[in-house]
């Protein structure tokens, strides 16, 4: 402590223990719900844990240790699951999260900047409207997006029909948004085909993602001092120059953590994938989380699922270390 008063050694011990009193309650709950399950997953990932072990007395299931078999099965694709290739899913998952964030952040910043223009009409209405995607529970929206991309009566194909009719095309558009397997741009991402389902999910997730970025950017924009812009315009800087030399650098500290958060949200985006495509067609839009869910919920291979969870853990760790390098998020301001 900064108060440099002489203390007896007993009081000193008490002082040293003090932080831990604050930590105990929260770590107790997180210990039970998050840290213990992590260790448990690690143990059963080396076993043949299946449904029968879950049903027969939970207290002491007799497990057979199978070594690294679960892991080998996942990596080599030896699981009796159709169209499963771990590295393709991994690559797709990274690309999916990255491509989403690269769209959401600029769009959010752009619209926040436009909405921050002085003298713009109806600002409040736009802000209230644009916050809706953050607010409406995602489970609800996912089903609606699935409808929109429906082959026959979906809004997207109807809209495209109107547009193509305008250019003289008479046939109605019948794009199989969620089920077509052949990628529209072959070889765009080597190793993992990006099907139409990927693009429809991008559109849906764009709807979900940019308003959040816009909210964060608006908050940061409002803390940029006005006089910076005034000084810049006295010096003759154009609006464009002001944007790139004042707005963008000053938004960076707020946008990078938000982008990292958005990356992890997209990386683990369960709702949309599960409801819109279910990972299909042919597992081309499967993410690590949806596959793990399938393993437990439908196939009930708990051992394999645990190995999968451990792999997800290490992937998350790598993501964390990389993003932490970028943001230095664990560094506190006083250090």
């Amino acid at each position, binding site marked *: 402590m900064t108060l440099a008063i002489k203390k007896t050694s007993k009081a000193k011990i008490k002082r040293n223990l003090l932080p831990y009193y604050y*930590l105990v309650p929260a770590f107790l709950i997180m210990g039970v*719900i*998050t840290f213990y399950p992590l260790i448990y997953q690690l143990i059963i990932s080396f076993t043949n844990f299946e449904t029968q072990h879950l049903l027969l007395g939970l207290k002491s299931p007799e497990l057979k240790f199978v070594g690294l078999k679960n892991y080998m099965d996942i990596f080599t694709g030896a699981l009796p699951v159709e169209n499963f290739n771990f590295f393709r899913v991994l690559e797709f998952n990274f690309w999916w999260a990255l491509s989403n964030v690269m769209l959401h952040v600029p769009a959010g910043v752009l619209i926040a900047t436009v909405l921050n223009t002085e003298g*713009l009409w109806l600002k409040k209405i736009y802000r209230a409207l644009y916050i*809706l995607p953050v607010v409406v529970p995602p489970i609800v929206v996912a089903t609606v997006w699935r*409808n929109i991309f429906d082959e026959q009566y979906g809004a997207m194909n109807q809209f495209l029909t109107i547009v193509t009719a305008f250019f003289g095309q008479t046939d109605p558009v019948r794009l199989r948004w969620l089920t077509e397997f052949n990628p529209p741009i072959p070889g765009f991402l080597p190793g993992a085909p990006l099907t139409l389902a990927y693009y429809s999910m991008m559109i849906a997730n764009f709807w979900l993602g940019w308003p959040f970025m816009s*909210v964060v950017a608006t908050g940061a924009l409002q803390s940029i001092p006005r006089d910076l812009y005034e000084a810049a315009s006295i010096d003759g800087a154009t609006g464009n120059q002001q944007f790139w030399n004042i707005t963008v650098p000053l938004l960076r500290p707020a946008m990078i953590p938000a982008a990292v958060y958005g990356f992890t949200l997209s990386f*683990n985006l369960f709702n949309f994938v599960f409801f819109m495509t279910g990972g299909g067609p042919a597992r081309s839009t499967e993410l690590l989380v949806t596959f*793990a869910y399938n393993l437990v919920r439908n196939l009930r291979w708990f051992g394999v699922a645990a190995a999968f969870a451990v792999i997800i853990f290490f992937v998350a*760790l790598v993501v964390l270390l990389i993003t932490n390098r970028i943001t230095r998020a664990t560094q506190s301001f006083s250090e």
Partner: protein
Amino acid sequence: MRNISFPRQLATQIALTVVGLFVMLPIWGMARLAFDGSLKGRPTEFRWLPKVWSFDAFMQVLDKPYQSVDFHVLLRNSLLVSLSAALIAILLGMSLAYAFARFRFPARQGGLYALLLTAVLPPVAFMTPLYIILSLLHVRTTLLGLIITYAAFAMPFCIWNMRAAFQAIPKEIEEAAFLDGAGDITSFIFITLPLALPSIAVAGLIAFLMAYSEFTLGWLFVEKSETVTLAMSIYAIVQTQYSGGAQPWSYLGSLAIIMSIPVVIIFLIFQRTLLERMMFGSTAE
């Protein structure tokens, strides 16, 4: 910045309206389903407006939305679970966040990393062990089990948000209070807490939302119909519909709208605070 010229104003308004239409598209689609009385199952044609206007779906949903469970039971469960989870996440998280913001102690950095890691991990990855440990504690099928689980998953984000807020408050203010004779707890309650309140509110709101719309874990744990929440019932309705269930999609639409109303109202009230505070405390000055 100066006031903008009229042509630019007009162009901006048009662009923003287009964006607004894009934002409204799914919400409009949902409302159309909800008010359409002509639907027998899946919607089989595209329309902008309902074919037959009707409030029947709303009436049905407000009575018994899912199987024979009363709406008020679902709503009560949802609110009870998400409010309690948010409260626990804030209270316990606050004490932890405060310790991380104010004290130096061994394993501090490690603890921060562990927290961040749990924030990055998807809850779905914990399904099996959670199922087992909650069963062993005899809380798996109860609302209490859900509350603890959701609180634990919301906690990392809450702690992160609140820690930044506590750090932004100068230590000197607390020390001044300390010299004036205030104890640790007094100075926390009367000085630190009020200053950090906006961030705490945001953390609580996010925790509430996470618990309010979570259904994957809940659906795995639930056994009795008395402990089903709104989000789970929507999931259940969707599942039966995709497998050829006979319920009209209007139910789904109206339940979705009803479920969104409380959250939208809360957000509109808090919007000002949110706009200023939803920056993860990355005090961008």
